[in-house]
C-alpha cells in the first residue's frame, strides 16, 4: 500500500466521520424531509396546537398524506398558524376541515384532515378555515371537576 493511497483512505475516513457527526448533530433529522418535498403547501389557523411539532404527520382517514413544516403565531389574530406540505396527488375540496388529534392516549399529536364535498379544490398556499384545535386534557379534567362540584348545588353549570 503506497503512502499516497493511505493518505487518501485516511482522508476519506475522517471526512466520513465528520459528515456522520454533522448528520447526527442536525439531530438525525432532515433525512426524511425530502418525502413531501414536491408537495403543495396549505395553511390552517388553530386556537391551540397542543404539542404539535414540525414534521408531525398530516393524516386523512388515518393515512399519512403530508407533514407539518412550520408552526407560527399570527400576531393579529393570536391564533397558531400551521403550515403543511401535502402530497400533490391529494386534492382537497375548499370546505375541508382540519383538527389536531393525539395518537393513542400518550402518543404524538397529528393533524387530521376531514375532506369536504365542494367541487372546487383548495389551491396551493390556501388556508383551511374550518379548524378544531388540540384538546387540552388538563382543561377537560378541570372542567369536569368543576362541573361535578358545582353540579351538586345548582346542576346547571355547563361550558
Amino acid at each position, binding site marked *: *500500500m503506497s*503512502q499516497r493511497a*493511505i*493518505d487518501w*483512505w*485516511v482522508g*476519506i*475516513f*475522517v471526512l*466520513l*466521520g465528520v459528515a*456522520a*457527526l454533522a*448528520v*447526527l*448533530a442536525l*439531530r*438525525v*433529522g432532515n*433525512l*426524511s424531509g425530502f*418525502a413531501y418535498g414536491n408537495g403543495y403547501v396549505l395553511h390552517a389557523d388553530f386556537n391551540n396546537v397542543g404539542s404539535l*411539532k*414540525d*414534521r*408531525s*404527520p398530516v393524516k386523512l382517514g388515518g393515512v*399519512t398524506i403530508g*407533514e*407539518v413544516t412550520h408552526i407560527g403565531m399570527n400576531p393579529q389574530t393570536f391564533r397558531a398558524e400551521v403550515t403543511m406540505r401535502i402530497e400533490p396527488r391529494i386534492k382537497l375540496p375548499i370546505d375541508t376541515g382540519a383538527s389536531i388529534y393525539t*395518537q*393513542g*392516549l*400518550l*402518543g*404524538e399529536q*397529528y393533524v387530521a384532515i376531514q375532506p369536504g364535498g365542494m367541487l372546487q379544490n383548495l389551491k396551493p398556499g390556501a388556508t383551511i378555515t374550518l379548524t378544531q384545535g388540540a384538546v387540552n386534557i388538563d382543561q377537560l379534567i378541570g372542567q369536569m371537576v368543576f362541573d361535578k362540584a358545582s353540579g351538586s348545588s345548582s346542576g346547571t353549570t355547563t361550558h
Partner: protein
Amino acid sequence: MSDFFVPRLGHVVWETVPRLGAATRLLLGGLSAVGNRHFSFRQWLREVYGLGVLSLALMIVAALFTGMVLGFQGYYALVRFGATSALGTLIALSLLRELGPVLTALLFAGRAGSALTAEIGSMKATEQLAAMEMMAVNPLAWVVAPRLWGGIFAVPILCVIFDLVGIFGGYLVSVPVLGVDGGTFWAQMQSNVTLSGDILNGLLKALCFGLVVTWIAVWQGFSAKPTAEGVGAATTRSVVMASLTVLGLDFILTALLF
C-alpha cells in the same frame, strides 16, 4: 486455609501492582512521545488506516444489523402501549448512548486490538524491539505512540459512523417494514436527542474506550512472553481484558456522564 490464601494474595499483589505501574509508564511515555524525533506522522497515518479504515466494513455491517434488531424489538415492546411513535427516540438513544460506543469498542478490540498485540508481541519475539533500542531508536516513539494515538483517533470516528448507520438500519425496519410513520419517527428523535447530552457524551465514551482498548493491546504485546505461545496467549488476554474493561468502564462512565 490461610496458609494457602495469604501467600497467594501477597503473590498476586506483588505481581500485579508493578505491572500496572509499568503499563501506566508505557501509556504516559507513549502518549507524550509525540514530540520525540522518532515519532513519525506517516506511521500514525498508517495506523489510522490499519486500525480505523480497515475496520469500517465490519462496523457498518454490525451497526446495520444492530439498528435493525433494535427496530424490531423496540416495536414489539412499544406496540402494546400504542407508543410506537417513540421508536425513533428509543433506537437513537440506545445507539448514541450505549450500543454505539460499547459495540464499537468491543469489535475494535477483536478486530484491531488483537492484531496490535500480535504485531508487537512478534516484534518482541523476533527481538526487533531490542534491536531498535540498540540503534538508539525509542520504541515508545516509533512503535507505541502512533498506535496509541491511532486508536484514540480512530474509535470515535468509527463510533459516529456506527451510530449513524445503526439509526439508518433502525429506520429501514421501522418505517418501510413495520409501518411506523416516518415523520413521527424523525420528529420524536429530533425533539428528544440532544447534541451535547447524547451525541457528544457518547463520543466521549468512545474516546475513552479507544484509549483503553489500544493501551491494553499495546501493553499486552509489550509484556508478552517472547515465544509463539506467549504471543498467542497475550493476544487472547488482550481481547478478553479489553472487552471486560470496556464493559466495566462503560458502567462508570454512564454513572458519571448521564
